[in-house]
């Protein structure tokens, strides 16, 4: 026995060091690295600011995680934070304040992916790529795979498991229904009432949606919903377009407004005799492109309904000028 004890005195330190080394290795090698949970995308130049932490501070100061150099931004403007029940933005008593989709934030506000945040006049779109929270609330008995609570934007590389993408619970293939673009369903709430000069497009649109729509254009309704590259999850930066479904001619919407008509002076020239020389205007409002008729002879139609006031365009809408039918694609970031 004493021999064993004598040997053990030499063995013990080595055992201790192996134990501690084994505990150290996972810390040095296998520990979870910082991940990009989401992005803030500058609306002006498309610059992406990665949200690498659960709490990210935003401001003009160098001490902030995301530094915004605008003079209107306070030194410590805001904190974007993932709490267990969702993403939040907190106002740090900033002078210029924060708005979420044009609604002013009092102290904190819950934000959804796709929301537009304004920090002292600088507009950013908020996107989530890897939601770090697996499940919220009580345990569900169903054997369904863990579903993240909010739509995950798949326009960026996502290393979240594929089943974490939102599935529309109706037995449809999982990725096919993931919201790849802003469409009407995922579009943030619009607030026009703050800018009194602007027409109330949204309520008009809602009224129209309540009426049964008879699509003027039914033959090509099976158009693919998204470019292939977007389905693969690669980052594509596409502009809003108008496409002729039969000829596949595509017209890109750039600038602030586009005139449509038969005349050579129009930005978008449609040579059909049913199109007036100056038929309609496409105008870029703060919340996206809208179409308005310019007293055309044969009228402008949005999804089969005659346009009398300016109407906002949503992804997949059908716009008809005379008998020329075009399909609107909203693009990725809206306008750049």
């Amino acid at each position: 026995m004493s021999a064993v004890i004598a040997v053990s005195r030499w063995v013990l330190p080595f055992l201790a060091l192996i134990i501690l080394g084994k505990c150290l290795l996972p810390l040095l090698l296998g520990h979870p690295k910082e991940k990009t949970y989401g992005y803030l995308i500058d609306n002006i130049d498309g610059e992406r600011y990665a949200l690498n932490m659960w709490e990210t501070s935003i401001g003009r100061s160098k001490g902030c995680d995301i530094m915004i150099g605008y003079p209107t931004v306070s030194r410590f403007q805001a904190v974007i934070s993932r709490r267990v029940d969702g993403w939040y933005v907190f106002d740090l008593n900033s002078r210029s304040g924060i708005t979420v989709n044009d609604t002013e934030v009092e102290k904190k506000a819950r934000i959804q992916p796709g929301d537009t945040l304004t920090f002292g006049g600088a507009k950013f779109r908020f996107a989530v790529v890897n939601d770090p929270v697996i499940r919220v609330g009580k345990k569900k008995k169903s054997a369904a795979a863990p579903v993240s609570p909010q739509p995950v934007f798949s326009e960026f590389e996502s290393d979240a498991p594929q089943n974490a993408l939102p599935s529309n619970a109706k037995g449809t293939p999982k990725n096919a229904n993931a919201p790849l673009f802003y469409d009407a369903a995922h579009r943030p709430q619009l607030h026009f009432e703050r800018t009194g000069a602007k027409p109330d497009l949204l309520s008009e649109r809602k009224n129209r949606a309540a009426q049964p729509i008879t699509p003027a254009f039914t033959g090509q309704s099976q158009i693919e919903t998204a470019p292939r590259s977007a389905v693969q999850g690669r980052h594509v930066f596409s502009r809003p377009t108008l496409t002729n479904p039969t000829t596949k001619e595509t017209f890109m919407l750039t600038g602030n407004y586009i005139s449509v008509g038969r005349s050579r002076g129009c930005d978008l020239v449609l040579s059909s005799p049913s199109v007036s020389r100056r038929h309609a205007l496409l105008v870029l409002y703060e919340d996206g492109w809208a179409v308005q008729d310019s007293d055309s002879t044969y009228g402008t139609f949005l999804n089969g309904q005659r346009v009398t006031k300016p109407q906002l365009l949503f992804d997949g809408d059908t716009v008809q000028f005379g008998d020329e039918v075009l399909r609107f694609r909203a693009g990725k970031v809206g306008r750049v």
Partner: protein
Amino acid sequence: MKQTKMRRADRLRKKYRYVDRGFVLLLLTVFQLLCLLPVVFSGDDAPHTKSAVLLLGYIAFEWLYVGVVHAFLKKTNFELEFIAFFLSGLGLTVAASVSERTLLKQEVAVLLGIIVFDVLLWFLKDVRRVMAVRFPLAVASLGVLALSFVYIRFVVGAINGAYNWIVVGNGLFSIQPAEFVKIAFIFVGAASLDKLLTSKNIYLYILFAMGCIGVLFLMKDFGTALIFFATFVIIAFLRSGDVRSILFVSAAAALGAVLIVYFKPYVANRFAVYRHVWEHVDTTGYQQVRTLIYAVSGGLQGLGIGQGRLRYVAASTTDLIFGVISEELGLLIAFAIVVSFALIAVYAIRTARSAPSSFYAISACAAASMLLIQTALNIFGITDLLPLTGVTLPFLSQGGSSMICSWALFAFIKAADVRSYPELFRA
């Protein structure tokens, strides 16, 4: 070329992603069995079967705990628990060599500590829950500390020159209320911050901290007061990230210390022996001098458990336990203990960056620094590198309050690790 390198790093990362539970447990078991042997078969007496059963029960409990937690809670990160098991096991070994009663008390303390650890870990899972109790907890803990001071000051009386012990049940066991306030101190310090970069509740926290430190001063528990103050400075730095205000706070504290020494010279007398222990070998420097002498005589591999001389010095199993281990288990094991505490710091730093909230990050770093400060005060105190303040060595010193508090502080560190809540967070 670069690609193969990347693949190798990925492979390594995959391989060492989680601590190898079975292997480390096996090593721990062998280690603790080898520690157990000389305790059980000491001298020419019959084997101490009771101690052997208790220590074997501890080893079995480690397996059971890791197995149950892994099987039912699906947790995979046991690094902290292994470090705590390692340190507690060494403490239990020393306790077993003193007496069976000490061992039993210490083992109950370990069990209570693990229960507190798991309850706190569950509680910290939801930050909203934490935010709801922070103010009641602050008021309650400050009240308990003040009441216990009044109780000890006027009813019980001082033990070892300080008013920090409450003795319950005719000396059956004693409680140090300050140890439990440590938990509340970290809790309130981290939780009173709503989000990054806000100073909304900082004044309330300063009041709370100053209240705690003031009562500790009145208790004459200067070691714990120093731990609280250092932790307060660290929490203040973590919350603000501002070096200047930290310097300001420290300068104010230094000035306060000078004033205290000026008006109450007896406080300074307690530390008069610092750096002069060899001039007071048999009086005030007795413990430090004996620790230094006997730790040297242990050498690299030690004299063997129960063979040392330091254990006959007062407070050998509480304040001087590091010296006892150096003498009886050798310098290498003592070095391993220091490495374990360094690992705690590494763990806190690694986890804090990816912690799910600033509360977790701050509480983990504050808890780790509290443990480290306490370790430094203890080890440097008994070796006369710092004034001897009589603080315990976490996990190793005999004493229930200290053991439970150490485990509770580990809960804060572990809560910051996203892997601790596999049902909630994606690691």
